[in-house]
């Protein structure tokens, strides 16, 4: 079966990975084969990030998956073709999050104690 479905005036391109379907919707005149490659690029990045990604990883860390997607695509356009670059910026931002959390935890410790609900 081919991986393209014509839907209204657009096309749906999907790729199946185990039990998950990754679906993209593109214009009728877009290159479907390269869309499949873009989907695969995203999946490979997820795999590298989570280390052998499985469905549960994505379910419990959907916000991280979104952050990765935001580093790969904006407005439907591809941002970068290098997995290394995308993962680098993702990990830098994760570090920043952890730093801030530590700072926040230390600074807000007193606040948390006092505002029990």
């Amino acid at each position, binding site marked *: 079966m081919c991986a*393209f479905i014509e839907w209204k005036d657009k096309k749906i391109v999907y790729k199946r990975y185990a039990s998950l379907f990754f679906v993209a919707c593109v214009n009728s005149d877009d290159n479907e084969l390269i869309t499949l490659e873009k989907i695969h690029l995203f999946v490979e990045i997820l795999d590298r990030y989570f280390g052998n990604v499985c469905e549960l990883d994505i379910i419990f860390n*959907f916000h991280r998956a979104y952050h990765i997607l935001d580093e790969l695509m904006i*407005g439907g356009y591809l*941002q970068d073709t290098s997995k290394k670059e995308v993962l680098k910026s993702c990990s830098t931002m994760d570090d920043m999050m952890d730093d801030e959390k530590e700072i926040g935890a230390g600074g807000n410790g007193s606040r948390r104690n006092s505002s029990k609900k």
Partner: protein
Amino acid sequence: MSIKLRDLIRSVRSCKTASEERSVISRESAMIRTAIREEQEQFRHRNVAKLLFMHMLGYATHFGQLECLKLIASPHFPEKRIGYLGLMLLLSEEADVLMLATNSLKNDLNHSNQFIVGLALCTIGNLATPDMSRDLATEVDKHLRSGSPYIRKKAALAMARCLTKCPDMVEDFVERIVSLLKDRSHGVLITAVQLMSCVCEIEPEVGKGSFVRLVPSLVRLLRNLLSMGYSPEHDVSGISDPFLQVHLLRLMTVLGEGNEEASEQMNDILAQVATNTETAKNAGNAILYECVQCIMTVESEEGLRVLAINILGRFLLNRDNNIRYVALNTLGKVVLQDSAAVQRHRNTIVDCLKDPDVSIRTRALDLIFKLVNLDNVEGLTAELLNYLVVCQSENKSDICTRTLGVVDKFSPNERWRVDTLITLLTIAGKDCDDRVLSASSTYIASSKDGVKAYAVHKLVKAMRDDDGTQEGLLIVAIWCIGEFGDMLLNPHTSENGVSYQALEPLNVISEVEGVTKQVTCTNAIRQRALTCFAKLTVRFAHCDAGVVQKLRVLVNKFKASINLELQIRACEYSNLIVEGGSGKGSLARMPVVDPKVAGKKSLRGSMSSGGIDAGAIANSSIPGGGGAVGGGQDVGGDLLDLLDLGGGTPAAAPAAAPTTNQSAIQTAQSTDADLLSDIFAAPMPTPSGAPTVVPPAMGGGGGGGDLLGDMFRGTPAPLAPVAQAPAPAAMPPQPPVVDMFAPQPVAPAGNGGTTANPTFTAFSKDNLTIEFETRKEDLSSQSCEVVATFKNSGFADMTGMNFQVAVPKYITMEMLPPSGTTVPCNGGGNVSQVVKVTNTQMGTKKLMMKLKISYTCAGAKVEEMATASGFPVGY
């Protein structure tokens, strides 16, 4: 105490039923709303994360929108990150609160931390409204020149969104975009190329104008990619950066289209890509696909095009479904330019029609319709009909209509065309458009007798085999049976060896009756069946009397129908078909419609007032009522009055012009004079007075397609047009009418002129002689009686004698019933019929008549047409 995101997800996943899930969600939703109301800051980002999860599951989360805005304004990075994500997911472009984010975005765009700037740019790239774009465009533009490639690439895509929303800003930023191409980072390159494609899409003239000079740079970039060698960072299955290659090719397609010079610069690199790219993996095929599309769109040279088509051919044979789909899609676009090359792959394409995948089947179907030509039409139509059997019903109607188009244009012969249409109806009768039904009937009616017989036999068989569901088939079949039922009584063997036995009249009737009795029979079918029964009383008139009686009984049954339309028809028909009624005239066979003009007329609608739309012939159930062929013995009054009913246009009569469109248009605006001249098979000089020379063999033209003109097609000689016409110089002279059948008519005036009642032979052929005797009470009156006497000198009786007359405009006529319809053989007796005529131009013009005689003699039906003009002067 609000729970962590992880715990919420876990509890939702552990729910066994949907209602359990709903209650978990609503409980948490209530807690979040409480937290929002109480302005709890420390859990805000966690709450928004939970809201995002609930939003993904499909629950209402609009109350969290303002929370996102508050998060964005926070100085902490984690909160900003979740805040922007929430903004992008929970809000859409139409949300009003989005405006409130503009200020935060502006602040963040000027932040020192590049990741925060990145967040802001990302949000703009996904969400910006036109107003926001206008506000923030300059800020975004500033970042296009940023030192960090990370920021530059995001700024490029944010700019793409801004320009899409505000196309008028394009000119301001075009120059900056150009400078991005010099970047070394692939991220910036690919975003820049996509930005340029986007600009070319929204403002083609500006975009192409500014970017076309960059084609050499693009070519160079592509060449570098190809010769780059292995780069682990950008490698995808052995190809370096296929994404950038594809987008470069895309941009080159846009820039090279219509531009000779640019296309020339691309020739080499396109050839190189086409020949050197690896086809083992999807990435390589993606590049080849884009390359082929580029070659076929730009002004490339012949050799390159051949190369491209060959690549597509290879794709078509690939086992991978995706590749085959892509090939079919592209071939569909290419077939107009180079159909010979695509024809070579016809067999593969036909195989794709049988593929299990629906997308491939759709593409193959499209392509086949584009590939049909005179050589392959038979084979391809067979394939299409096979496909029609298995395809989904929503597509059937469309396929039927398109197949009709194919049949219209490319039919090799009549029999094949009729065959194909009947098969089409058998397979998909209930899904067919009305146009298909009327076209089928028109084609059958306009074909040769042999084909007609074949068609009606085949239709009866199909009707018998059908289980009552294919409404379209039943409608056409019943109409044909009504029209051509007499052909069913004879066996038929067609050229392809299929032979049909003769049917008994009662069998035929019971077939049609059986259809009306089925549960699935609609009223439309019953209406047509009624008409069919009525017509069959005439077609089977020569059969056993019980047959006609049965038909009358069947029609009468519907007089008590609940449906008003059926009741009316039954009452009217039963009056029409009583013994000795006027049924014969009104229910005679319809004249032939030219399919082309029928199609044109149905498009034009009915120009005439109340005229019967020719295109609705198949659907009309009134048997030529408005334009009855022949005098209609009891109808009385003027034949031509009937024609005038239609506003004097031939559209009033079901017949349409067999040949020239010109005459059809002419007569559509015709004056009465035109109408008359049509009768005499002479094209009228146009009302503008342009002279027309009438070719003698115009007979076949049938004039303006008036039904009578059609009837009298056989007459070769042009006849005088009527005095009412504006008299142009080259009007054909008043010739003595040359009757090709009759021996010289007995000279009227003078010969036996002293007798009070001049007689002459109006018609004589095949043992039938008709003599006209003109009688007048008062020599000065314009009215006289013409007594027609039929004599049979052969040795077989002539039964079912049907005599019809048409007269020019200046004559009014009334026909009385004949003394009988059987002319005994060997002169055993005569049949006579009186025709009363009034010549309004008495003295100026002689009487003239056109005759149509039909009868059955020795089992064979005979139809003759003639002109009677031996009338004496002074009548």
